[in-house]
Each structure stands twice: as C-alpha cells, then as structure tokens.
C-alpha cells in the first residue's frame, strides 16, 4: 500500500530518521500559566515545536504535561500567555478552531465513543471535512453518498495502516486496551493533522505493544509528515524516538533540548531521582 497518496498536502523530504529536515517553528508556546482555583498547574511555560519533528514532554506525575496539551488544544484556557500556531497568535484556543487548523490529539484516558464501532469512531475524525448538509444526508443523494464513500476509503487506509482490519465493525467498548489505543490514534489521524498531540500513547502496554505503537508513531511522522508532540513516561521510548525533549516538574519547565542534553541535565536527574544527601 503506497502510503504517499494518503496526504496530498505534505511533500516530504526524506523518509529516514536521521536525514529528515526539521522545518520552521510551527507551534510556539509563550509564557503559559494555568491555575485551577488555588492550584497552579503551569507556571510561565515557553517552548517551541518545529515542523516534522517529534517533540516529547516528560516529567514526573502531576507535572502538568496533560494540562499543557489541553491548553494547546483549547480544552483549558490559560490565564496568561499565548500560543502561536503557524504565525497566528492566540490568547485562547477554541477546540473547534484548533481542530480546523490541523491539530489532533489522543487522550490519556481514551475518550473513545464507546457506543460506536471502530469504523464509526475513526469516521468521526473525518467529520470536519464532510460538507453534505442535513437534507442531503437524509436522502443520501449522489454527492452525499459519494462523499461518504470517499471518506470511508480514507479511513480504510488508516485501518490498514494500524492493522485493525479484523475489528472494524466491533463496538470499541469490547476491544482490549491496546487496540482501543490504536483506534484513538486512528481517529486523530483521520483528521489529517499537521500536529498530532499524543497523551501517553503507550500507557499500560507491554513491550511488544510499545514497539508496535512506536513504529506507528514514527511511520506517522515519516509518511504523513505530521509533527508529533508526545507525552510519555517510558524513558527508553522517549530517548529513542524524539528529536527534542521538554521537561516539566511541578508546572515549571526544567529542561529543554535534545535527548542527550536533557539526559545529562542535573535538574532533570534531581526531579526524577531525588537529591543525594
């Protein structure tokens, strides 16, 4: 299956990791601060993300990683700071706007639509691109039916890519956790995102499943050309697949750089391993 006809828009330089050109800064997070009542979840966080790179956000539990993604995504509105996406600066992101601009995400706790099949779940990711009106859908006229079939074809490519063909008609609630995570990814991919936010995509997986998921993520990065922002706890995975890493602790940024730079950063070591007495 030639994966290049999947995204008409992205013309990629290379498909190998080392040789890929990282592009311009596509997402720039500036001085974001977020509080819930008295609790400060994020304090003055700034970092940027380059096009086509794999950017990891790591940190101990409760560091504010998911909150950061939620801010980028428009689920939370930060009290201070701004986010620049492709040159446009926003004080607040609106979920739908963000989706339209090409940002998709997966969720830590799998926000899948339990009542629908795998196929339907991924099809919902295509909703933004479906233009038929209500009446057209009711009568299923020529153009409406064609559009539905067109999008079905695209979703089937994604299903092939994620190797979940056997489960396409199964209600997602019945699938094992690992497969559900793939459906979550599939739904995000269906949006043809330019930036993909992955919230702990490997949580709860064994070694084999993690290898599969890593392969999918890298393939998405290579073949779809999507920029990946990834929250992950497994250090091995992070060091292996990311280009650059941001480290958060207690809502503050304590490290930013390549995996090697971050690995040797004292603050980061202290945050994870504690202080030597």
């Amino acid at each position, binding site marked *: 299956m030639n994966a290049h006809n999947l995204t008409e828009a992205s013309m990629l330089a290379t498909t190998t990791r080392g040789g890929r050109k990282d592009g311009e800064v596509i997402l720039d997070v500036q001085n974001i601060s977020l509080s819930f009542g008295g609790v400060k979840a994020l304090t003055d966080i700034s970092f940027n993300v380059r096009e086509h790179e794999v950017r990891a956000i790591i940190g101990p539990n409760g560091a504010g990683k998911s909150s950061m993604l*939620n801010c980028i995504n428009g*689920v939370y509105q930060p009290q201070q700071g701004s986010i620049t996406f492709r040159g446009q600066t926003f004080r607040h992101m609106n979920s739908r706007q963000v989706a339209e601009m090409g940002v998709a995400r997966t*969720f830590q*706790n799998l*926000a899948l639509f339990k009542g629908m099949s795998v196929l339907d779940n991924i099809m919902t990711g295509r909703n933004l691109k479906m233009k038929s009106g209500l009446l057209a859908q009711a009568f299923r006229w020529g153009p409406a039916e064609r559009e539905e079939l067109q999008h079905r074809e695209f979703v089937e490519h994604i299903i092939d890519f994620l190797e979940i063909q056997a489960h396409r008609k199964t209600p997602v609630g019945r699938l094992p956790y690992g497969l559900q995570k793939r459906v979550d990814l599939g739904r995000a991919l269906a949006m043809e995102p330019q930036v993909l936010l992955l919230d702990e995509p490997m949580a709860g997986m064994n070694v084999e499943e993690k290898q599969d998921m890593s392969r999918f993520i890298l393939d998405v990065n290579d073949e779809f050309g999507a920029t990946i922002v990834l929250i992950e706890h497994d250090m091995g995975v992070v060091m292996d697949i990311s280009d650059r890493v941001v480290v958060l602790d207690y809502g503050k940024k304590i490290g930013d750089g390549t995996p090697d730079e971050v690995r040797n950063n004292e603050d980061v070591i202290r945050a994870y391993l504690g202080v030597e007495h």
Partner: protein
Amino acid sequence: MGFFLETLFGGLMVGMLYSLIAIGFVLIYKASGVFNFAQGAMVLFAALAMARFSEWFPLWFGFQSQILANILAFIAAMAVMIVVAWLIERLALSKLVNQEGITLLMATLGIAYFLDGVGQTIFGNDIYKIDVGMPKEPLMVLQNTFQGGLLLSQEDLIAALVAAGLVVVLAIFFQKTATGRALRAVADDHQAAQSIGIPLKRIWVIVWSVAGFSALVAGIIWGSKLGVQFSLSLVALKALPVVILGGLTSIPGAIIGGLLIGVGEKLSEIYLGPMFGGGIEIWFAYVLALVFLLVRPQGLFGEKIIDRV
C-alpha cells in the same frame, strides 16, 4: 396590600406542602442517585393506606375512638411503606444498580404505575377521607393592622409547621445519628461506603422507608386537605420543579424551592393570570424552574456537575 399578603401566605403554605413531597425525592436521590418518579404514587399509596386503615380498624377491632383508629392506622400505614421499600429494593433496585440514569428513571415510572394499580386494587378507588382532626375553619389575624384582618387557613398553617418539624427531625437524623452518617456516606460514594463496611442494601431500604415516611406525612396532610383520590399523584408532579429549583441533592433546597414555587404560583395566577387568560398554574412552576436552570443549571443548592476528560 392585605390581599397581597394573604396571597403571599397562601403561597408559602402551599409551598411547604410541595416541599413535603419534594423532600422524599431528595432523600432518595441523595442516597442512591435514583430519581424517584414513584414518589407521587408513594404519597397516594400511603394516603390510601392511612385512609382505609383508619376506616377499617374500628370495624375490624370494634372500637369507637377516632384518635385510636388514626394512631393504629398510622402505624399500619408506616409498616406497609416499609414493606414497600423493602420490596422495591429487593426486586427492582438491586437488580438495576449499574444501569444508566434513564433506565432507573423508567424503572421508577414502572414502579409508579404498579403502585397506582396495586393501591387502587387493594384499597379501592373512590375518594376517601382522612380525618386527623385538622381544623377546617380559617383564621383571621392582624385585624388591627388590616381592615377585616387577613384570612389564613389553619389547616395550611399546621401543615407548614408539620413540614418544618419533619425537616428538623430529618436534619437531626442525618447529622447526629450513625445511620444518618452512613446515609450521607452512601450519597457521596457508593463504592467507598461499601468498602468501609456500610451495608448498601440495608441503607437503601432505610432511605426508601424514610422517603416512605415523608410520603405518608405528605399524604396525610394533602389527603386531609383534598381528600384521598387519584389526582394526588398528579399533585406530586408539581414537586418536580421544586426539586429542580432547589437542587436535586439538597433538603434545605427542597424547602426553599417549595416556598419559591408556591409563592410564585399563587402570585402569578392572581397578577399575571388575567393577562394570559387564566389557568397558568399548570405550567408556571415548570417555566420558572426552567428559567432558573438557565442561570444556574444545578439548581439553587445542588452540586455542580463536573465533566472530567
């Protein structure tokens, strides 16, 4: 001005009566998360039991005293309500524990229909009297301040006092007793309560019995006022906007909501009614609740519904 005050008081009284029924809703919702559509049917059932027992006991046991009849009838009716509570828990609730809200709501509707049918089969479907010695003559007060004085219904006054008394008793029960504490724990989190050894089933039987008790009290008050008949369960539908206004989880909310609805209804009928052609009582309470909800979706004292991602 005098007329306004009379209407106001009348509204407050009616409001207290609505609250009596609403309290039953809140009790059950707080403790089991079930929205008990059968509360109205329970009120009717309890009232029927009371009315008929007070009629039958003198005949069966051969005594004359009305007071004795009433006391025995009350005890018997309460016993019946406890049995009903136990049956509901055993046959319906425990089997439906993990279902969604709408399924439980439908189940209580089914129970309501069932209770209606059973009640009328066992106790009959005429209009029955409850005579607990409520004074029927109105009271004239404040004859010096207002010309002719204000007309207050003694019956309604006593009903209001009883409702207030019931609330105090319930409040003490919830705050001060061990069972009350257990009930509050269950209301907060079923699983946590279970894990510290609170017997969930027994708690639910207790809650539904207490709701049955408040239904009985409400039934006696309303039945004494209106006579015990089928339309009593329709009156209970009025309690819904009360609960919505006050918040599904708050007993003080049920009182305040009741007062607001009662006053609102009476005043609107008198002052707004003519503009609309009369009879707006049937929808005013609901529209008021709806408008309120737009401003405060969880009701006055209800808990905010939090969506977690």
